[in-house]
């Protein structure tokens, strides 16, 4: 074990890799060790459910950086490192192969693990989740024209896979236990716009029904699903998009505070001053919304990485970025700024016949969220401006928000940051 001052990152996903890069960008000259266990270099996950499943992009083309980058930046990337434990007393990460890596500062960016189905038949061949590049390679083989795909869960992953499978010429059924799609993420009306589009494209979307069991052939291969309403549906594979669980096990075992995710302060530092967390795994207090939250999205992983790297170098910066999320399905895009779920009233702006934005205002009339659905060209700019207004905790007259003839950008000049 080396005694050189070192930055160690557990988790070579979006946040981990970007944080490694940001440490160098912020002038850290010492060692950086990036510990991954997926067997491949860090890659961008958003294309997995879209371009990769469409066959337009290989998983290798999703790499965040090329090999030369890690060499040039002197980042010791290990892609088969399984961590046994964090030894806080020794300030070292102990690997399962017995080696350990000492740290001056440690970043836990272990992300989240997809929840798997547990109903009878869940271990049959042809039952999948989609989280990693390896998962995508398994799923891409299932999406041949004419095959029947059962997707469990009408969240973003499930719906993106549905759109991709339709484009690949598959027959698609989406089975959702809740009464509507995207329960946690967007207002009901946004979800309804999306589901309507899926149905137009031929997806069989069913709500308030669960998979009771997965039926298999003697070949141990999926042949169908049995639903809670008694119907049986034949299908060639099952893909579960039923949420994720933050990978907090290492932190918990090391006695680091966990509250849903790894609990950090507003500088992304845990209760151990040498240890930080970032990305999907971390639960952080948000200054704007005055509550603790955990976000599972690309932008948050990026933004956290940038700030946490600086704070690992003791800059003490507060994280207060406005959450922003997108999903691309068919020719539609969904963009969400802020936290629509924190709103109590809604103002709707129809930016065109097929595109609209829903603004969410809290009890005090403060804009807290905006969800746009439709063409990117019709919604992106206004959602972007809303993102700025949310950062300013602006109180905006809902009638201005609803009136599409009112330009939003001038409102920014009125609302000081």
């Amino acid at each position, binding site marked *: 074990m080396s005694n050189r001052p070192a930055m160690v990152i557990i988790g070579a996903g979006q946040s981990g890799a970007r944080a490694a890069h940001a440490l160098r960008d912020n002038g850290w000259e010492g060692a950086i060790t990036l510990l991954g266990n997926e067997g491949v270099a860090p890659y961008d996950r958003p294309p997995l459910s879209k371009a990769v499943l469409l066959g337009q992009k290989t998983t290798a083309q999703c790499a965040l950086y090329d090999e030369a980058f890690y060499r040039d930046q002197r980042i010791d990337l290990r892609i088969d490192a399984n961590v046994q434990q964090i030894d806080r007393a020794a300030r070292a990460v102990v690997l399962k192969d017995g080696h350990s890596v000492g740290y001056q500062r440690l970043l836990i960016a272990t992300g989240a693990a997809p929840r798997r189905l547990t109903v009878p038949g869940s271990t049959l061949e042809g039952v999948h989740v989609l989280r990693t590049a390896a998962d995508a390679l398994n799923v891409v083989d299932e999406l041949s024209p004419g095959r029947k795909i059962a997707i469990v869960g009408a969240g973003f992953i499930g719906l993106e896979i549905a759109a991709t499978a339709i484009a690949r010429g598959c027959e698609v059924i989406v089975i959702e236990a809740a009464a509507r799609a995207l329960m946690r993420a967007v207002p009901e009306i946004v979800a309804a716009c999306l589901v309507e589009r899926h149905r137009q494209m031929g997806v069989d979307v069913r709500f308030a029904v669960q998979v009771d069991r997965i039926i298999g052939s003697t070949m141990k291969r999926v042949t169908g699903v049995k639903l809670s309403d008694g119907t049986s549906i034949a299908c060639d594979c099952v893909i579960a998009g039923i949420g994720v669980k933050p990978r907090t096990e290492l932190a918990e075992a090391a006695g680091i505070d966990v509250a849903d995710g790894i609990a950090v302060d507003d500088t992304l530092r845990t209760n151990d001053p040498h240890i930080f967390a970032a990305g999907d795994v971390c639960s952080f207090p948000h200054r704007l919304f005055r509550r603790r939250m955990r976000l599972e999205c690309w932008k948050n992983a990026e933004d956290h990485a940038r700030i946490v790297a600086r704070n690992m170098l003791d800059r003490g910066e507060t994280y207060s970025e406005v959450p922003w999320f*997108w999903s691309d399905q068919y020719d539609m895009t969904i963009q969400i700024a802020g936290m629509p779920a924190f709103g109590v009233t809604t103002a709707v702006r129809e930016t065109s016949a097929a595109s609209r934005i829903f603004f969410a205002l809290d009890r005090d009339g403060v804009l807290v969220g905006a969800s746009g659905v439709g063409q*990117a060209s019709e919604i992106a700019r206004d959602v972007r401006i809303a993102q700025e207004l949310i950062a300013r905790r602006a109180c905006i007259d809902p009638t201005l928000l609803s009136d599409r003839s009112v330009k939003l950008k001038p409102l920014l000049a009125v609302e000081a940051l």
Partner: protein
Amino acid sequence: MAVETNDIEWVVACAASEIAEEDVIRFDYAGASYAVYRIAEGFFASDGWCTHERAHLADGFVLAREIECPLHQGRFDIPTGKPKSPPVCVHLKTYPVRVEGGEVLLGVPAQAQAAS
């Protein structure tokens, strides 16, 4: 209207007054699409389509001297086309611009037929 010099031709994209301060418009010419910007440093132009996925930068958001793509919020430096923020990582092609008599002229690759 077009004036040729070597490999580029100068075409009128719009009146200078048509672009608000810190804003961008789309300009299509000879089968190509451009984004024309007005920022504190002056007028600039680039390819219209983002280098990441299919989105037009004229639908994006200008922040000081950067353009942010409307689809995934990647950013480019407007004067140089340099990628500034992920997910964009491929350089954005820029084009020379000059303002004459209140008009914004764009230096675009000369058309083969225009050379005769």
